[in-house]
């Protein structure tokens, strides 16, 4: 799955990632063989509905999956040609926050309520750049101003900030050490629409200045169109379609992707009813043998239910996991 359109160096390569959680005695297959590449400076959108395994993919890359619930992790995650899965905790600590960092979904709970925002931003800086307290605080103030918050709020606590400002603080924490890869897990979901636009602009602006690569997790196709170069559609813990923004948006090929686009109401037509995709995603504790989407797919045949197919190449960098395209191609 090489990306021919860019000559930049390969930054991150995820190969056959599988994650199982244990939940009340049963095994939840959260991620089932996800592979993708990300080059320096690129931005990838991971799209999918709630529970598709997007956040688990992100946490696997950070290697911060919850100990108590994670049952099995398999696959390889190469970051600059080093396998993060094989690394020791100490080495990982040097990469986390300084080379890869993450913005979490809910700014209301992502900040430590009993620590000032200044300390929370400065903490990573101190750790990675080995600065003393005063210098780290100066750096934190600069970071706070970069995300558009005035410097005199450095000693305030998270409860004194609004939701949008908290998310800015979270972004400031993530970008404090100029990471090469930023993973943003639904950074705008918990915010209202005007603040959403501000936060996205902020991420885009910082990316433009610093050339940070981005993995943006979202279920909002509009956000992807606005921010990303590449798109991967995730369904039931696997990628069902991946390609450049144009390829996927102009020629959606998997029935699920088509369904997602179909569900967006047309602004120029008077739509009385939205057209959702019927049914629910499969139960991750007992995934079907064949295509995971078969039960909701309008084109599903007996063959679809019997055989689980691979990602097939269509054009350029565009890959789809569907028997129909496999046969047509």
């Amino acid at each position, binding site marked *: 799955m090489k990306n021919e359109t860019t000559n930049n160096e390969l930054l991150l390569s995820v190969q056959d990632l599988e994650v199982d959680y244990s939940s009340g005695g049963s095994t939840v297959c959260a991620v089932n063989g996800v592979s993708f590449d990300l080059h320096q400076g690129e931005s990838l959108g991971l799209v999918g509905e709630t529970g598709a395994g997007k956040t688990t993919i992100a946490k696997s890359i950070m290697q911060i999956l*919850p100990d108590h619930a994670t049952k099995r992790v398999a696959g390889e995650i190469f970051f600059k040609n080093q396998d993060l899965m094989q690394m020791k905790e100490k080495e990982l600590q040097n990469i986390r926050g300084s080379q890869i960092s993450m913005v979490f979904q809910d700014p209301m709970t992502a900040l*430590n309520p009993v620590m000032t925002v200044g300390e929370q931003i400065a903490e990573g800086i101190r750790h990675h750049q080995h600065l003393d307290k005063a210098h780290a605080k100066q750096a934190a103030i600069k970071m706070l101003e970069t995300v558009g918050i005035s410097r005199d709020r450095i000693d305030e606590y998270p409860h004194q900030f609004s939701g949008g400002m908290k998310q800015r603080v979270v972004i400031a924490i993530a970008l404090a050490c100029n990471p090469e890869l930023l993973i943003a897990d639904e950074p705008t979901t918990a915010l209202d629409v005007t603040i959403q636009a501000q936060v996205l602009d902020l991420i885009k602006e910082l990316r433009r200045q610093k050339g940070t690569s981005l993995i943006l997790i979202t279920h909002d196709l509009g956000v992807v169109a606005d921010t990303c170069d590449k798109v991967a559609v995730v369904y039931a813990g696997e990628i069902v379609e991946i390609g450049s923004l144009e390829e996927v948006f102009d020629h959606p090929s998997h029935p699920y992707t088509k369904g997602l686009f179909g569900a967006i109401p047309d602004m120029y037509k008077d739509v009385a009813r939205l057209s959702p995709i019927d049914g629910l995603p499969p139960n991750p504790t007992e995934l079907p043998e064949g295509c995971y989407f078969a039960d909701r797919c309008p084109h599903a045949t007996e063959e679809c239910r019997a055989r689980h197919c691979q990602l097939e190449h269509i054009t350029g960098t565009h890959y789809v996991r569907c028997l129909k395209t496999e046969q047509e191609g």
Partner: protein
Amino acid sequence: MLRYIGKRLIQMIPILMVVAILIFTLMYFVPGDPVKIILGNDATPVEVEKVRDELGLNDSYLVQLTDYLKNLVQLNFGDSFFSGLPVRDELMNRFPYTLMLTFCCITCSVIFGVPIGISCALRADKLADRIWMFITLLWSSMPGFWLALLLVLLFSRQLGWLPSIGIGGPEYFILPVLSNSLGSLAGIARQTRASMLEVIRADFISTAKSKGISRREVIWKHALPNALIPIITIIGGGFGMMLGGATITESIFSIPGIGLYMMNGINNRDYPVVRGCILYIAFMFAIIMLITDLVYAFVDPRIKAKYVRAKKKPAKAEPERSEVTC
């Protein structure tokens, strides 16, 4: 903050008054006659009447109550029927022993209980966690007096390592502290585990981990401070309880603390002693609760904001800052 403390202290006065009236009434109606205990069974009715008159026990309920409250306002708790010594002085003399015992017990419970709780939370449902949870369940359900007797049997009678009664050097405190603190240690450990388990699954712990700081820092700087509130509640409660005199422990080990004093007072129907002790316990409890509330504010800035808001807001008249757009 000072205003808040002042307010709480003033609120304590009516509470203590109510406690005083309640305990007085209770002791007035409780059966048993102190004079018969003082004079013994051979006393003639004339002698008994004489002593009752001297002690003011023949006055009506209302007269006795007013006398009692009048003295109380002047911080006079009355004199013991038996020794004739002022209850206030006796309380003062005995307080250091109870304070010492309490302090040792709480320190011991905290320095062992909190780390045990944390390490169990980090190994939740592993073997070590299950063993510790079993042990602490055992400790917290064992009655203190029974444990005390077992300890005395083993360490004093069988092995002869430690003295079993009285006070003296530090070795005299080992058994009382051990028997009195295992229960609260277990309680603190279990509460710490529960509260840490909740916190280490919170989102901000993922944020902290994703900064690349060490596991130890994540636990001690991010998780523990957020888990402290329920732990402090339990410590405060235990502190207040023990300061009220570990009655049973003090009786078994003959430590001349408040608990033993009250115990003897109750047995002898020595009304002024019982009233004095109960009031002292109520006062200590109220003080400890106030301190607990202040510690909350120190630990959690959100609680602190509640206390100081009323004072700070008017001074901060500047217009609300709007969000800066970029």
